[in-house]
């Protein structure tokens, strides 16, 4: 448990540093690479909590597919150069920082309130592909219908992306 907790603190520091880089860096390509770092750290956290399938999907879908899409669009629109689009100026920066600080405080407060230490369940829940599959396709649970809806959503997403990005012939 000792090694576990040291690993957690190191990874959490890395994760927060990378997340700050996503926001602070002026170059969108570097923001994207920092976001890949955040996602890899989160994947390790998922594995550490026994959610193997979610951790693997995190790397494959987020760090693989979604970030490649981001980098592809950045390069397609030629935004990789040091960014001419500066951040917002004037009042919006302190307002955003203040609002986020309030948000962080309330989230942390709600989290600390909701997690009563006595409620922790000792039986570990495993997130292997087998367990996820049994839960997903169990007719007695709500996930099967959501799964079918998600397939329709992804189909609509694919068709919508093609329609949006096609060249108008006029």
């Amino acid at each position, binding site marked *: 448990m000792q090694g*576990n*907790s040291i690993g*957690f603190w190191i990874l959490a520091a890395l994760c*927060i540093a990378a*997340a*700050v880089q996503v*926001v602070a860096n002026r170059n969108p390509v570097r*923001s*994207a690479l920092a*976001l890949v770092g955040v*996602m890899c750290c*989160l994947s390790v*956290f998922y594995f*550490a*909590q*026994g*959610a193997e399938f*979610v951790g693997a*999907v995190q790397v494959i879908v*987020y760090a693989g*597919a979604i970030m490649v*899409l*981001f980098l592809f*669009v*950045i390069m397609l*629109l030629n*935004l990789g150069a040091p*960014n001419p689009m500066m*951040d*917002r100026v004037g009042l919006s*920066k302190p*307002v*955003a*920082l203040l*609002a*986020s600080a309030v*948000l*962080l405080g309330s*989230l*942390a407060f709600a*989290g*600390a309130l909701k*997690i009563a230490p006595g*409620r922790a*369940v*000792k039986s570990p*829940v495993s997130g292997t592909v087998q367990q*996820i599959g049994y*839960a*997903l396709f169990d007719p007695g649970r709500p*996930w099967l219908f*959501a799964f079918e809806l998600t397939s329709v*959503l*992804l189909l*609509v*997403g*694919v068709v*919508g*992306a*093609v329609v949006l990005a096609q060249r108008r012939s006029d």
Partner: protein
Amino acid sequence: MDPITATHYIGLSAILFAIGAVGVGIKRNPIVIFMCIELMLNAANLALVAMGKHLGSISGQMMAIFVMAVAAAEVAIGLGIIVSIFRSRETIDIDEVNLLKL
């Protein structure tokens, strides 16, 4: 050092969510704003998985998987919209693209 509990993961998740919210507030590049939204979705996922483990239920992981699927669809549509806006206006600066503003 204390063992790592769900509280630690929830705290980390709250910090990541707040950093993403700052980015959405101060950035003018819509692609970076999208990345910050992804960061916030990831923070929510971390909270879901941590609470699922804390309560001994697999439901947290199931919800995280559905969030990932919806995020994938959202990114495909959103980047399609950005490419389309860039084609018609030659800029994607979020302050210049104000067609829907009253």
